[in-house]
């Protein structure tokens, strides 16, 4: 390649945010470790307080760090190459999130396809069924576990279907917001983005409703109701946490839009939040299919 002008790549000077973040994670991990260890005994400990302090510190760090980055970006320190670094970084982060969910989907499918039938004597496990739990019959959803815990399966119609429609719609509105931003139609951008946030919040509201319904005396679907309850709550729970995070990202972006940030060509933060939103949407579709429908 011959000579070509390259923009300088912005390497920030020292920053104290990383070490604040590291200490925050230390408090979170140690505090959570202590808190969880003490749960069974019921005694109070310093764990919970340390966890809260860590979380507060983490929020402070994220706020401060992102403010720095936004200032740098607004003052024109970033090059096109820098923008690419952010975009690629965000895509690989989302990929890592996909793999996190893959672990839980893997557990769900393994239980359904292998371990539950095996406990009923499938394959070469005839004696397992006979000796350990002769009363046990393999079904999915597993509404009666080998040790006799009973529960009810959550149907796919009603709230879950409504939530699917809400989230799918929100992905479309997020896309419209993006198109509006690229065409520099700020008013439409605000409307579509606001609508996306509202849909996300409604989704979360109904998710909580659904959990309340699951935990009612009528359904008795608890986190510890055997492998069906485990996978149901862990998958939907982690998904819900990701929707919450995505909504927070969208709200932050919304406030930046109100402040007049982002241009049709330069709007990494918007794009990152919108990618993240589409990602939680895709996870939900898989979840709806594997957890609720089949």
């Amino acid at each position, binding site marked *: 390649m011959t000579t070509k002008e390259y923009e300088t*790549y912005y390497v920030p000077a020292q920053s104290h945010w*990383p070490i604040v973040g*590291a200490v925050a994670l230390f408090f979170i991990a140690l505090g959570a470790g202590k808190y969880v260890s003490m*749960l069974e005994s019921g005694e109070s400990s310093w764990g919970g307080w340390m966890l809260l302090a860590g979380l507060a510190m983490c929020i402070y760090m994220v706020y401060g760090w992102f403010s720095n980055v936004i200032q740098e970006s607004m003052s024109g320190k970033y090059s096109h190459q820098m923008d690419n*670094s952010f975009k690629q970084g965000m895509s690989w982060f989302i*990929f890592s999130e996909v793999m996190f969910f893959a672990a839980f989907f893997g557990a769900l499918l393994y239980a359904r396809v292998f371990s539950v039938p095996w406990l009923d004597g499938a394959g070469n496990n005839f004696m397992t069924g006979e000796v350990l739990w002769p009363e046990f019959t393999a079904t999915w959803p597993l509404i009666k576990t080998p040790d006799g815990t009973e529960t009810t399966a959550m149907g796919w119609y009603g709230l879950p279907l409504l939530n699917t429609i809400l989230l799918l719609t929100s992905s479309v509105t997020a896309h419209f917001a993006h198109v509006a931003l690229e065409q520099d139609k700020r008013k439409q951008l605000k409307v579509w983005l606001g609508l996306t946030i509202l849909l996300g919040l409604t989704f979360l509201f109904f998710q909580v409703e659904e959990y309340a319904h699951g935990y009612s005396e009528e359904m008795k679907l608890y986190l510890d109701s055997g*492998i069906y309850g485990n996978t149901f709550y862990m998958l939907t729970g982690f998904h819900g946490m990701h929707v919450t995070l995505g909504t927070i990202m969208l709200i932050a972006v919304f406030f930046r839009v109100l402040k007049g940030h982002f241009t049709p060509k330069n709007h990494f933060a918007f794009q990152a939040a919108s990618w993240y939103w589409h990602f939680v949407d895709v996870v939900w579709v898989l979840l709806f299919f594997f957890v609720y429908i089949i």
Partner: protein
Amino acid sequence: MTTDVIQDTDHQHDEHHDHKMTGLKRWLYTTNHKDIGSMYLWFSFIMFLVGGAMAMVIRAELFQPGLQIIEPDFFNQMTTVHGLIMVFGAIMPAFTGLANWMIPMMVGAPDMALPRLNNWSFWILPFAFSILLMSFFIGGGAPNFGWTFYAPLSTTYSNGSTAFFVFAVHIMGISSIMGAINIVVTIMNMRAPGMTYMKMPLFVWTFFITAYLLIAVMPVLAGTVTMVLTDTYFGTSFFDAAGGGDPVMFQHIFWFFGHPEVYIMILPAFGIVSTTIPAFSRKPLFGYSSMVYATASIAFLSFIVWAHHMFTTGMPLFGELFFMYCTMLIAVPTGVKVFNWVATMWRGAISFETPMLFSLAFVILFTIGGFSGLMLAMTPVDFQYHDTYFVVAHFHYVLVTGALFSIYAGAYYWLPKWTGYMYDDALSKWHFWCSLISVNLLFFPMHFLGLAGMPRRIPDYALQFADFNKWVSIGGFAFGLSQLIFLAVVIKCIKGGKKAEAKPWDGAEGLEWTVPSPAPYHTFEKPPKID
């Protein structure tokens, strides 16, 4: 690859002088890939000594049959934390340190792509390992369920350390994922103009592929430890048959992470010796592109061989066969690599500087570890080897004489570039020869112990194993002490010595040798031109 670089490093240095803080703040707040690389390397060496001290305790207890020094439960804590520290605290951060130091210089980038994130990735580690080590003093003691934390040992039968272990692993994982994303983005986005993918040094390629493995499997580890946490403390039954789960499911999910993890610890080693062997053979690397494809193939295969760790769990026959054949297939790309290293040396003008000695030892001893791996891959014979010292011998050959020796080769190779001085040659040769002899005394007899049936992870053993264990322990202590020589060499090299030239090795290739030694604080702020 030829380079034509005009350096205005003095100018760059002046311009940025004011940015370099002094004292503790420099290290806490730094965004410089060289500072962060050095911190990673020092951290990993400290962890190596801590984990090594635990190995000494293990070998002291196993010096004789019977229970001499420590309780069986503490013995289990020692083997567990030794494994965790060596894998996550010593080998992986050492490689990340090398990546941080070298990749920006090798691809002609001013720094890592996301410098602040880089500093965060590092500083999480000391805190994560503090939590792990603190668990010795909190509650029922440190993790005692093996570094593989199989359920139900880590769930139903946990000694109360599971929660600390789980959260420590979580933040370690965050550190690894962010570090890996940084490496991928740096390589994809920060290469100097003209540095095409197939012109990158193989060192960069191996880290590129390793970083992908990390991004793909560290989240699976996070998922695994989360399930262990909820099984232990929140009543779920992922790994409990009474609730419809399966303890074997733990092993499937864990090893889906665990097997790629093994290659995360060896692929960068391939990259290092693929740099040093051509340099000291004064010949270009034989079969560069086949090396790239072999690395990628090994990475791909690593995702479909995990159950070879579980042949004795009673898998369906189809599973046993599938995983056996896939595992054996790995020997093909690995063979390509060993063949290429040998072919690189063939008719080369070889000289035996310390980095080359470690690289040669790597090729031979790693191959021994590779062959014992092939033996373990055969399902029917694995029934005999499973959970014996044969396995211990196998993975220590690939991790100590493999990964660790390559790290030493890299450290000696680049020490002049890092410090600006040549290391003490005589002392470094002492380090090499003492390590080489003691490491074989340490690990080779373990093969015989394993074949004779001595199980791993036990504090006591039958009398017929006594003689070999005595020699293994002596080898262990000698190997442990030999590593202190390395510490002496490094400290001496930092303090002074013969001035190193910009390119102290006449056969060395690559952009890192076009900058002065020691490398200036900022390099390649303007991308170099590559023909």
